């Protein structure tokens, strides 16, 4: 187990480094630089600026410097947002993104598993058909439609909830729901599918023959097996939710980190983009790692080759 962990950790770090490297050089491939504006800067000013931000060095040199800085946990100064370091910008945006994403994850897993279980335990009944039809609709409605519609209905027409921004508890209702919708539908479908598959397995007959109450059978014999595919889906899904959808941040005017990515890439704010990518990549890899470990624990069929 320890050996497996170490190998897995090593691979994760390697992937992390690859991502940082690829994005670093891709950003530099793009034409234009952070200090190109409407008017050309006087050459002396530009030289000074480039020197101040370490851009006068050769590219490999800058890359090594960046990695060294990253090693110290420093994401560098933002090129375009003067007086702010990328660490500060991420520190203000990340909590918002994480709150919305965490709530969405909570909604998606609880509602999704409940709906999937309900449908899967009575396959091909009327309930099942309706619930699955509903999830189909949920998956076909992209956030760019759902989010504005929710604002229109609950924010504008009914006036029950704020249309955007952060602050009170009420601000945290619509964005997570809009974000969670397709994920909820996907989890419901996955759960339903694997519950139906599990129902046909022999050990359930044994459990029933022993006279176990149905609720216990569901809890002990169906759910642990049926949730395996859901767990493997949760890794990438959690990462996608927690890093926040850029669309949700735009529609609800949320100060998360997604917008830094868009702004930063368009302004060639190299360090800001790199900073957000580093955070995203770290989260995504962390969740994939956690899911792999959970999988090993949950599925007795997996024996590690050590």
């Amino acid at each position: 187990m320890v050996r497996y962990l170490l190998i897995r950790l090593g691979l994760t770090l390697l992937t992390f480094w690859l991502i940082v490297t690829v994005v670093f050089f891709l950003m530099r491939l793009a034409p234009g630089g952070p200090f190109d504006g409407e008017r050309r800067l006087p050459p002396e000013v530009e030289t000074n600026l480039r020197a101040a931000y370490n851009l006068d060095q050769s590219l490999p040199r800058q890359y090594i410097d960046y990695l060294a800085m990253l090693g110290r946990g420093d994401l560098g100064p933002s090129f375009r947002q003067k007086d702010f370091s990328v660490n500060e910008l991420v520190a203000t945006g990340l909590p918002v993104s994480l709150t919305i994403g965490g709530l969405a994850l909570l909604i998606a897993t609880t509602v999704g598993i409940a709906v999937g279980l309900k449908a899967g335990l009575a396959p091909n009944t009327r309930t099942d058909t309706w619930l699955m039809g509903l999830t189909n609709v949920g998956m076909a409605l992209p956030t760019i439609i759902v989010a504005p519609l929710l604002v229109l209905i609950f924010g504008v027409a009914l006036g029950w909830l704020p249309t955007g921004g952060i602050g009170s508890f009420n601000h945290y209702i619509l964005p997570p729901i809009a974000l969670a919708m397709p994920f909820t539908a996907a989890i419901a479908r996955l759960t339903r599918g694997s519950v139906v598959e599990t129902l046909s397995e022999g050990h359930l007959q044994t459990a029933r023959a022993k006279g176990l109450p149905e609720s216990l059978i569901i809890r002990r014999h169906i759910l642990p097996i049926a949730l395996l595919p859901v767990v493997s889906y949760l890794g990438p899904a959690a990462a996608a939710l927690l890093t926040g959808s850029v669309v949700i941040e735009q529609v609800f005017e949320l100060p998360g980190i997604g917008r830094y990515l868009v702004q930063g890439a368009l302004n060639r704010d190299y360090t800001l983009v790199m900073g957000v990518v580093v955070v995203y990549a770290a989260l995504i890899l962390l969740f994939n790692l956690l899911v792999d470990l959970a999988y090993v624990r949950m599925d007795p069929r997996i024996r590690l080759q050590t």
Partner: protein
Amino acid sequence: MIRSRLTRVLFDTHLARACSLILITIVLLAWLGPVFSSWEYDQIDWDALESPPSLQHWFGTDFIGRDLFVRSMLGARVSLGIALIATLVSVIVGIPWGAVAGYLGGRTDQLMMRIVDVLYALPFILIVILLVVIFGRNPYLLFMALGAIFWLDIARIVRGQTFRLREQPFIGAARILGVATPAIIWRHVVPNVLGPALVSATLTIPGVILAESFISFLGLGIQEPNTSWGVLIADGTQTMESSPWTLIFPGTLLAMTIWCTNMLGDRLRDQLDATGAGYTRTSSTRTHMRT
């Protein structure tokens, strides 16, 4: 035989028939729709600014008086066209990549699949933004590049299939007969992985449509006066409070298309699974992950 199976998938239940008909209608309208209307997509009707649906303007008009029906149909043309281009690119890249990795195995396979893993781990929006930055605002280049992202799923599936095929006697026989490796891959491996690859491609289409709408929504995709469903929805969001139809019509078209392609894609996969070897991990449950 294949054809009869395909018609069965597309038409045998009420739901499947409805979906097929809806898709056919949308494609036909996208192709011919503008012919029926007397308006041009960039023509402004000064007498009907932001007017609700009427006999003159079937879907109403937008905030500067352009006919929404014609614009929705043009949007359909652009969105569907892009989906087809990107899917084609993803198939062209994904099948050889997966087949070569799966057939050669060993180090080559490890390296090729690690590249796929790294690309998977990159946030989708970041790749898109980098592509916009590199290719500028040329939508067709951008969406060719989108295809270059969606090949990942296909490559994984094809690789898994090839891995299984490699051990089959007929491949061994070809090898013993001295057939060159590229020829084995092209003549014996690729035809046998086409089925699952095409199922995956069917499910790539809604993925690309969603991605396009998402990019255009952020203002990074198709530019005015040209339009796509994403652009129309983004505009509709701006004006939905005073004229909800500007959001509802393009939104419904987009949602119906995605719903129907998801639906048929899943059915196609189920059919192949029932008759084939239990493959294909793709399903519509993954479509939304990339936005």
